């Protein structure tokens, strides 16, 4: 009897708690509220953290070491639980992810300001620069052209961004420490290597004026070479620049290298 009384009280209180928390969610009016969101890009190779100068093996027996690893992220947008999309303002919506700028944990942080308060369920972003932004020329670039040029992400022989830049060396069973340079982007309007990815969040990302959630995006750099279309350095993928066959393969592989590993709702 005693036990069942306790159980009843417990059940009642649970139902009240769950009711009230449901009510809270439904009635919480977030209109006009803003918050911050931090994207932490954390480059890795398979189950290892990425470290400059460390040799990593490919599936075909080739190996590589990098001393530069950079890429451009743009057009970040967030989908919330009600189906609304929040687009970060176009002019500020382009970011350089440069491993060399990482913190001690190898994370590159991108802080998004003035994000609409909401419960977000997925994120989309582009790798590189889309054609629309190219067509605007200098308009809306602010000082990103300077930032990109200082980081070696702007071509000088032609106008355009390098979307990804990997520099280092590779070895195979026949060669040792040969130059490895992946410097690719779009070329004019005829070679468009911009790609968009959408990543679901493992749990809702709660942006509030008082909460700055952190989204931990892990990448697997190996996917660039061992992704949906595995490539061999010895077949010419040690130097990828503007080739209309090679560059889209790398771009498509690269799309698959991102995942949201976990989220902190702080």
């Amino acid at each position: 009897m005693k036990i069942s009384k306790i159980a009843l009280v417990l059940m009642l209180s649970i139902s009240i708690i769950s009711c009230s928390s449901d009510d809270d969610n439904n009635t919480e009016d977030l209109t006009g509220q803003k918050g911050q969101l931090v994207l932490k890009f954390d480059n890795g190779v398979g189950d290892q953290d990425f470290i400059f100068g460390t040799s990593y093996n490919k599936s075909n027996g080739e190996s590589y070491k990098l001393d530069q690893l950079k890429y451009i992220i743009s057009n970040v947008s967030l989908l919330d639980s009600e189906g609304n999309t929040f687009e970060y303002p176009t002019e500020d919506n382009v970011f350089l992810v440069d491993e060399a700028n990482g913190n001690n944990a190898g994370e590159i942080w991108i802080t998004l300001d003035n994000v609409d308060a909401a419960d977000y369920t997925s994120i989309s972003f582009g790798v590189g620069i889309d054609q629309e932004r190219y067509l605007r020329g200098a308009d809306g670039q602010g000082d990103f052209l300077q930032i990109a040029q200082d980081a070696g992400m702007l071509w000088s022989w032609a106008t355009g961004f390098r979307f990804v830049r990997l520099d280092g060396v590779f070895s195979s069973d026949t060669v040792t420490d040969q130059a490895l340079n992946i410097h690719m982007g779009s070329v004019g309007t005829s070679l468009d290597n911009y790609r968009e990815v959408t990543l679901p969040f493992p749990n809702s990302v709660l942006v509030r004026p008082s909460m700055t959630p952190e989204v931990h995006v892990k990448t697997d750099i190996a996917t660039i070479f061992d992704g949906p279309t595995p490539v061999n350095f010895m077949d010419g993928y040690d130097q990828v620049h503007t080739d209309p066959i090679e560059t889209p393969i790398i771009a498509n592989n690269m799309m698959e290298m991102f995942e949201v590993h976990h989220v902190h709702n702080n």
Partner: protein
Amino acid sequence: MKKLLLICVLISFMSCDKSDTIVEYEAIPIDFTIPSNFPALQYNLDNNPLTEAGFELGKQLFYEGKLSANNSIPCAFCHEQAFAFTHHGHTLSHGVNGGIGLRNAQPIQNLAYQSEFMWDGAATHLDLQPIIPLTSELEMDETLSNVIEKLKADEIYQDAFARAFEDGKINSENMLKALSQFMIVMVSSNSKYDKYVRQEENVQLSQIETDGLNFFENKCASCHATDLFTDQSYRNNGLPVNPMLDDKGRFNIFENQDDLYKFKVPSLRNIEKTYPYMHDGRLSTLEAVLDFYDAGAVDNGNVDPILLRADGSYGISLTAYEKESIIAFLKTLTDNEFLQDERFSEY
């Protein structure tokens, strides 16, 4: 009440002070009309509205040595007005520290009507084109951020950027937009030929000029098309390859074999003044150019089929009178109003 008055007086003093020292954005638009014989504008002016102050800033930057590493090579160094903004007779461009570029400087005129720039189309937006010479080690050998730092330190530019742009920022976006504004306004559309085709001022072509125009339309205008005198395509015209330069042209962009030795069909406006000719400036007269098309082209492996003659050789057969009259016609494309327009002059 007294307090309120005091505050009012203070505010009015403060605002006076402000307007004396802070230069403000001046959105005085520039009247930009498209000549009736021109094709459609390619530049989207909505993204970069032309203003007097923007144009003036662009001009100042065009003549500014600080855009180069040694502070002495402005854009105008290789783009002189009297030669339709080319490099007065130089085959190849010169740059900082005695550097010699790889190609002949092209004229700056009517660029807002084109969508790709440079001999190989390496620039796909007018705004971004200046980055190429600015960063080339052989030309200006600078970086955007270094140039921006130099401009930020200069009071003249602090004011000029404030007048020219709403956000007043000295950054690469606004610097490139100003340069574009200057270049967009650089339109050559008042040659004798233009006045003739637009039937202005009763301008007539002479007999030999008319003959030249007819020959031109039959033998040249499929590539030198429209009143811009370029179809804006890339073609290999059978120019013998100079092994010293081995310039592969558009091939350098996509590494596509079909693009080997292709260069952009140049406009012929002010062609009389933009000598020497071809991408490497190897031909110094118009006579030499027409002699080349008549009898100098070689099969370098990828010549434009439009130049294939019945006998299997490449070129455009031209009689002596055809050459003479075509040159007479080409000289009607000289636009002295443009070449002497004070709006574009340094002083």
